[in-house]
Structure formats: structure tokens, C-alpha cells
């Protein structure tokens, strides 16, 4: 087994090289006019746009605003999604009873929830949080459900044999730890999904990165749009990196 293991520093280096390459190709594409001008700014044009957003204070404010919806929506969606997935995965009765409802609600797009968010929460942060939470919810729901279903059933016997046979004890001592790789994969997907929904969530006029992007987009300020896309990428990379640290710590036992 050629199990090449890379150290943290090598990973970082390789990752940076990969990114550099991407930026180089991007710059070349724009310079060689392979895309119509005005549709995609060159990376080198982003700097001045970014600076002007910062000096206007828009950038900092948008990040703060979006972060508040993002974090809250992510938390709510992840907790409820994992909770519901765990319960549906472990209690066949609940699973069967909710099967139809889940199939009815699942394919409703985030945009279609907007009227309900308006109705239930009004045009405010709660509405935006709700839309983010919904999209994160499903990802985590299915990941948790699948992870629970693939837990080695023999381990439940161990729990039962050592006095942890109650539903709660099995959940705590077997389902949760055994499903944790799957749960964490779901949480990670949700981290990204949450950023993707920030734009849809801020369709409500709630200020934030998404609203600012739409505004820039309607003014055809593509450079500003891309600045915010890169900003989101940066924020995501940061959350994903931090999450990776937690994840690696939690899954040490996998080696």
C-alpha cells in the first residue's frame, strides 16, 4: 500500500500552488480576452475594488451582517438537521411516519421558502437566518440519517450488554460516536451550503454580503461582485479550516 502521507506544511504548500495556478489561468483568460470584457474582472483588478469597499466601510459591515445570519442559520440548521436525522435514523416508527412529509418538503427550493419566511418572520434577520437554516438542515438531515443507518449493529449489542441499552444511552454511546465521521462530513458540507444560501437569504433586503453582491450586480460592478465572492470563499476557507482542526481531533481514533 503506497500510503503517501503529507505533512501539514506540504499540504499548505501544494494547496497554495494549486490556487496560484487557478489565479494565473484566470488572469490569462481575461488578458487574452477569452471572455467578453466586463463579465469577469482579472484578479489584478480586484485589489482596487477591494480597497474602495474597505475604505467605504461596506466590506467590514457586510461581513459582520452576513456572519450573524450565517452563524445562526448554520447553528439552527445543523442542530435540527442532525437531531431529526438521528431520530429518523434510529426510530423506525418516526422514520416511517415522517417519510412522506420529508419527501414533500425536501425539494422545495430556498427561494420558495422566501414568502413563508416573510410571513413568519417578516423582512428581517430572522427571515434570512431561516432560509439559511433550511438549506443547511437538509444536508445535515440526510447525512445524519445515512450515517446512523450504517452504524455497525453489533456495537449496539455491546452497549446493551454493558447496561447502556436504553434509547438515550445507545444514542450517546454508540450512534453518535459511531456515526460521527458521517455527521462531521454532513456538517462540513453544510458549512459550504450555508455560504451558498447567504445570497438567496439576503434577497429579502437584509443587509450583508449577498445583498451587497446583488446591488453591485445590478450596477454591473462585476469587480465588486467578485471581491465579495472571494470574500465568501475566504470566510468559508477559514471556517472549513477551523472545522477541519476540530474534526481531526474528534476523529483521532480513526488514525
Amino acid at each position, binding site marked *: 500500500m503506497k500510503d503517501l502521507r503529507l505533512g501539514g506544511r506540504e499540504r499548505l504548500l501544494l494547496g497554495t500552488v494549486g490556487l496560484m495556478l487557478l489565479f494565473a489561468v484566470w488572469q490569462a483568460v481575461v488578458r487574452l480576452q477569452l471572455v467578453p470584457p466586463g463579465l469577469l474582472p482579472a484578479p489584478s483588478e480586484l485589489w482596487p475594488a477591494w480597497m474602495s469597499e474597505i475604505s467605504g466601510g461596506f466590506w467590514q459591515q457586510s461581513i459582520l451582517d452576513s456572519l450573524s445570519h450565517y452563524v445562526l442559520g448554520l447553528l439552527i440548521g445543523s442542530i435540527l438537521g442532525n437531531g431529526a436525522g438521528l431520530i429518523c435514523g434510529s426510530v423506525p416508527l418516526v422514520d416511517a411516519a415522517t417519510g412522506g412529509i420529508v419527501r414533500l418538503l425536501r425539494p422545495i427550493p430556498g427561494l420558495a421558502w422566501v414568502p413563508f419566511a416573510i410571513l413568519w418572520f417578516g423582512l428581517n434577520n430572522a427571515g434570512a437566518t431561516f432560509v439559511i437554516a433550511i438549506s443547511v438542515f437538509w444536508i445535515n438531515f440526510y447525512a445524519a440519517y445515512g450515517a446512523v443507518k450504517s452504524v455497525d449493529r*453489533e*456495537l449496539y*449489542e*455491546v452497549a*446493551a*450488554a*454493558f*447496561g*447502556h441499552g436504553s434509547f438515550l*444511552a445507545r444514542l450517546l*454511546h*454508540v450512534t453518535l*460516536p*459511531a456515526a*460521527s465521521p458521517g455527521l462531521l462530513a454532513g456538517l462540513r458540507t453544510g458549512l459550504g451550503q450555508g455560504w451558498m444560501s447567504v445570497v438567496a437569504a439576503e434577497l429579502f433586503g437584509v443587509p450583508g454580503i449577498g445583498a451587497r453582491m446583488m446591488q453591485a450586480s445590478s450596477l454591473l460592478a462585476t469587480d465588486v461582485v467578485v471581491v465579495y465572492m472571494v470574500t465568501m470563499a475566504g470566510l468559508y476557507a477559514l471556517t472549513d479550516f477551523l472545522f477541519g482542526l476540530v474534526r481531526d481531533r474528534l476523529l*483521532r*481514533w*480513526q*488514525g
Partner: protein
Amino acid sequence: MSLVRIEDTGLSHDGGKSFVFRHVDLSIGRGEFVAVLGPSGVGKSTLLRVVMGLIAPTEGVVKLDTSPRQAGTRSTALVFQDARLMPWRSVRQNVAFGLEGLGLSASERRERAEQALRLVGLAAEGGRWPRQLSGGQRQRVGVARALVVNPDLLLMDEPFGALDAITRTSLQEELLGIWEKTRKTVMFVTHDIDEAILLADRIVVLAGSPACVRGDLTVGPRPRDLSSSSRRVLAARLRSLIAGEDDPGSEAWLRSVDI
């Protein structure tokens, strides 16, 4: 009187079409050390799981009369044939698994787990993950996990299967020592006839398909010399019972007493 009463019990995996074992009748008295012998795949592990209550019998009933337990103990404990450690718990945490929820303090749990690990010779491995252990080490952790809860009824499924002669002998001695001191009831599945003779008061042989009790023999006083002629006769008898070679015909083999 008896701690375990298995009455006309049968188990089927396919809802009654074919049975793993059927019409099994067996009582185990308090303090008895019973070995269960039988060919591979006959249903020994399945029987233990039925006694433990992990699977419900398809037919018959299993009654346990475990006494109200002492603080910090469990009424029954099981050593699984394939160790079955929780991969996400360190060795020490695996051993302490059964102690959780018994109202012990963390330091008490830790101390008892360490003691059990010392007993199986793994005092130094407490901080490792299960994947970092050898096969025999894993099995020993499984033994420690069961011993640590100090159960009334101890069910052991080939606990010393993967151990070298030395480790095995020392663990057998430990087990006997514990048993002599505490007089726990032990139901001990093994494929090793010598081990059964060495340890048990009584040896139950499961054989046939569907399996049922084909022999139930009492072994004489301890300490035991395996090379004595009477033991050798007993071993030969057990061998033919396991092989299903000599059909008892009568109840003669059941309850036959051996010196």
C-alpha cells in the same frame, strides 16, 4: 434456586423455518462454573446472546435470577468472541464502559479500569486506541471490560481464543482465582476441551442441527491434572460428543458424573 433457567428454548434467524438450536433445557446454579462446548457454528455464541437478553428466543423462555446488585456492579456481563471494542474509545475508556452510569466517580472508574487492565497484563496500553492493539490484546481488553463490573453472572465467549499458552494460563489462573474468591456464576464458551476440563464444574455439550444439549457432565474436584487417566477418558468422551459420533440414545450422558 438456579440463577439461569433456560426452558425448552429455540432460536431461528428466519422466523421459524430453520432453527439454530431448539428444545434446549439448561439450569445453572448460583456459583456454578459451566463450560459450553460444541463444534464451530453450532450456536454457542447465539445461546450466550439469548441468555444475555441481546436477542429474544423464538421459542421457550430464559429466566435469570440475578440478585439485587451491589453498588458499582452489574448483574451480568459478556465477553464477546470478537472483542468488539468501541474504536472511538481508548483502551482504558473501553474497559470503563460498563462502569459508566453506575454512580461511580471518574477517579473510581479510572482506578478500577486500571486494576482490570493490570489483571490482563495491559497496564501500559491503557491510552492506546483499539486499532493499535494486537489481536490477543484486544481480546484481553474485552475480558477486562467484563470483569471490571464484577457481575453476578459472567458470560464468556471463547475469551482466551487468541492467546498464547503463557498468557492464557495466567489468565485462566486469574479467572479461577476470582471465581474461587467471589463464587460468581460463569458460563464459559470454549472450543478447547482441555480448557473446559481445567476450569469448569460442569461441561455442557451442544451438538446437532438444530443443536440441543447432547451432554451435560460434571467434572471432579480441583486442582485438576489433565494427564490423569480419568481426565483423558473424559476428554475422549467430550470429543466424541462434540463430533456427534455417539448418540446418547438414553439420558445416560446427561448428568453423568465424572470423578
